[in-house]
Structure formats: structure tokens, C-alpha cells
């Protein structure tokens, strides 16, 4: 009975700046400010991945920090969720063509929520964290959690999170699947 309060109401976040230009990072800081007050949702900004439930990543992945990002991700105990904040974290953004940029963070870790924007607005970041917290709860119950796709959805209905597992592709159903990006999640060229 008590369990339903847990994860949804207390998503502790850890922020990792991958390759960001700081725009999204300072908007994350602004989320903590009295105007937006992230703590309303029980969010604590912990510096330690071992305590965190939600990983907020800003910026794209480069050769040096890919390993660090994977490391931070691996240190987080299950259930966990990843939020890609801003377009750089989602696809590489304006820096996609840079020689040292590998692309969005999807290259390294599975993403649960993409927050758009350059930089992402604090409202959008808060929304992303709250959505990630809902996914945490589903994940704990062992229910299938859909991973978003950056490929625009054409006419398919949005996946029902409570749908029975057999209707969901196996790769999507397993919450702990490492970087199993299904074919339809492959990025647009």
C-alpha cells in the first residue's frame, strides 16, 4: 500500500553534463530556484549517482565522456530513468557534425524522456523529470515501459503503458535492457 508513494514522489536526480554549452545546465539550476522549485516534487539534486533515481544528461556524447556517462549510469541502482535534456543530449544538436561528437546520449545509455529545447526551458525540464518518475514506478512493478523514439510517429496510437507485455516488443518490455535500441529507434540520418 505504502509502496505506491515511493518512487513517484521522491525522484532524486543526478545531473551529468556531457558536452553541453551550459545553456541547459543553467536552466537546470533555474529549476531549483524559488520560481520553479523542483523540490515540490520531492526532487533532491544529489551529486552521487548511487543515491539517484533519475539521471539528467545535458549535451552530446564525446569520445572522452562516453565512458564517464556509462559509468555514472551503471552506478545507479535499479529502477532508474534517464532524461536527455535539450537537443544536444537528444541528437547531438547543433554540434552533431563536430569531429569530437558521437551524437546524442542514446549512443551510450537508453533514454526514457527526451526534453526538447535549445536550451530546454525549466518547465520542460520539470515535466521531463516528473514523467521519468512515473516511468520509475512502472519499472518497479515490472510493467513494460515504453522508450520514446525520435522518429516522428506517423499514425500509430501512443503505446499504452499498462498494456499486456506480449503487445510490446521484447526489447521495449525489459526495463533493464542495456542499450537495446530497437530498429525503429534508430536515428534519422
Amino acid at each position, binding site marked *: 500500500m505504502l509502496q505506491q508513494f515511493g518512487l513517484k514522489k521522491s525522484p532524486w536526480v*543526478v*545531473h*551529468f*553534463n*556531457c*558536452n*553541453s*554549452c*551550459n*545553456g*541547459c*545546465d*543553467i*536552466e*537546470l*539550476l*533555474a529549476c*531549483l*530556484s*524559488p*520560481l520553479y522549485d523542483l523540490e515540490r516534487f520531492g526532487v533532491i*539534486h*544529489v*551529486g*552521487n*549517482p548511487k543515491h539517484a533515481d533519475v539521471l539528467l544528461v545535458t*549535451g*552530446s556524447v*564525446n569520445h*572522452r*565522456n562516453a565512458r*564517464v556517462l556509462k559509468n*555514472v549510469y551503471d552506478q545507479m541502482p535499479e529502477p532508474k530513468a534517464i532524461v536527455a535534456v535539450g537537443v544536444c543530449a537528444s541528437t547531438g544538436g*547543433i*554540434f552533431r*557534425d*563536430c*569531429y*569530437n*561528437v558521437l551524437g546524442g546520449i542514446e549512443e551510450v545509455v537508453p533514454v526514457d524522456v527526451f526534453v526538447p529545447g*535549445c*536550451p530546454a*526551458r525549466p518547465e520542460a525540464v520539470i515535466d521531463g523529470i516528473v514523467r521519468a518518475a512515473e516511468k520509475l514506478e512502472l519499472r518497479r512493478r515490472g510493467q513494460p515501459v515504453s522508450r520514446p523514439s525520435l522518429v516522428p510517429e506517423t499514425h500509430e496510437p501512443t503505446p499504452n503503458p499498462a498494456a499486456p507485455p506480449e503487445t510490446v516488443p521484447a526489447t521495449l518490455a525489459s526495463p533493464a535492457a542495456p542499450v537495446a535500441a530497437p530498429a525503429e529507434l534508430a536515428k534519422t540520418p
Partner: protein
Amino acid sequence: MSQRTTIPFGPQHPVFPEPIQLRLILEDERVVEALPAIGYVHRGLEKLAEQKDFQQDVFLIERICGICSFMHAMNYCQGIEQLLGLAVPERAKYLRLIWAELHRMHSHLLFLALLADSFGFENLFMQTLRCREEILDLMEITAGNRIMLTTCCIGGVRKDITPDQLKRIGTGLDRAQASLGELGGAFAKDYTIQRRLKGIGVLTREKAHELGAVGPVAKASGLAMDLRQTGYAPYPELGFTPITETNGDAYARMMVRLRELDQSAELIRAAIGRLPDTPLSVPFKGNPTGEVAARIEQSRGELLFFIKANGSKNLERFRARTPTFANLAPLLHMLPGCELADVPVIVVSIDPCISCTER
């Protein structure tokens, strides 16, 4: 007990919004040696700027750093204008100045908030961020975005500030300055803050010059060095003089920024008062050619762009030397000998922008 420990300070560390790694070698809690490991946010922006059209580069270069984005774009545009021989209309110069100073204010307020965070003063952190929102509101009202304004373009600005918005800037600055007055008192006079900042991370005037410190770090050490005096924008007409402190410690660096906040607000007011009525931009034809080293005083100090163009629409070389890059050497000079508890304070006191540094 003099056991040596090596602490990897970063790249993912809560006090830094950005990844830089300082390998600190500690004896007990005293830092003996500090080695930087950077490259965690190296993207290769300079190369991309050479591959893109020089007009697209305005938006790319604005994203060298999200905190002082407008000033990057401004410096780049000024450099290209110099190559093209464009005379920017007066109104555009004043509008650029207004946005640049708004950016300086929000950047300095962010610095104060991070500094408060670095010595664990959560309340002050929150209040400073609240004050910062006033400035962000002004930017959103005038440009449509909170941080990335993208109003600067080659030849002038893309957007005008209407009289209503100018009035709103005035009231917004009043509110920000009112709360800044209270916050400034807390920052300058609080006993615990003074204990944490005074005499910490001292950089003498000689060392500051030798190590090439720029911006508030140099000004706090007594070097009156502010490129706004060179007159790239109508600063001299508005009666600008650089602010300096003499002690060269973290407290002095904070005071420089605190006083610059008020100065920026006054500059904006003065600029609004004298805003000339001219077109916003001049049209231009052709591609730039030649070499130029454009400089500007960004919120963290001197920003230098070396631009080499060869008459095609791609630049031949774009090089950015950002202020934090210059301030890294002073930082590494300040760290040895300090306490571990002072490391966040010292690092934050130079207002590091790693994203600028590594591009």
C-alpha cells in the same frame, strides 16, 4: 598524520555544473598539488565553424557557451564586420550593449549563486537565483528566449526593443537592484561568508599579470583591465570605468562582480536614455576576407576571436580564446596549499566556464 590521498574532483561533481576534473593530491585535507584533466566538453566547435557558412556561424558561435552566449555572437559579428568594413548603425550598437550587459548581469548573478552554493549557503543561493530570474525575464521579453537570444547578426541586430519593453527593462532593473541591494549586503558583510572568502585563493597583482589572468580575476588583483574601455560599443560615451579591488582573494573577486552588477544596471539605464533612432542593421554583400583578432570584454573577461577569411563563404580559420582558458593557469596557481574545503570556493571564484574553455 600526513597520508597522501588523491581525489578525483570531478568530472561529475555536484559543485560544478560542468565537467572538469581536478586531480587533487591531498595531505590530510590540504591540497599539495592540483592537476587539471579537461576535454570532457571538447566538441570541436572551431572546426565546425570552418565548415559552416560564415552567417550560420553566428548561431553556432553563440553556443560556445550558454551563459554568455550573446557576447560570443557579438564579438564574432564585430570581427566579421571589421573584415567586411561595415559600419554598424548606432542603435544596433546600443541594443547590443543592452543585451550584453543583461547577459553580464545574469552571468554574475549565476556566479554569486554558485559561490553561495560552494560554501553551503543554500538560502542565499536560492535568493540569488530568484533575483536572477528578473534579468532572465527581461531577456525573454526583449528577445523571446531566456538564454540564447540570437538577436545579433552581422551588420547589426535582428530585433528591436520597443519603447514598452524599454520601460519594462527599467522596472525590471529596479526590482533586481532592490533585491540585489539586500543580497549584496549579505554577501559583503556576513561573518561566515567573510570567514570563507577572505584570504582564500590569493592572487597577487604580479602573478595575475604574469599568468595572464583576465576579467574579474585580474580586476580583483588590482589590474584595471577591461576591454569595454577600448570602445567597441558605446561604453566610453556612457562613462565607463573599470572596477577594481586590490586584495586578490576570493572575497575581492566576489566584490568586483557584485559592484559590476550595479554598474551594468546603470549602463543599461544610460543606454536606454540615449538610444538613437537609426536603422537596426546595414545590408552587406559578398564574403569577408582577411584576418582579424576581435576582442571583447565578456562577463568572465577578455574574449579573443581570431578569424581568417579567404573570400569564400567558409572561414579559413576560426579560433576562440575564452576567458576561462586564460584563467585556468591562475587557478592552478591558487590551488596548492589550500584546504579541501576551500577548493570549491576557489574554483568557483574564477567563475569557470569549461564549455567556453574547451569549445
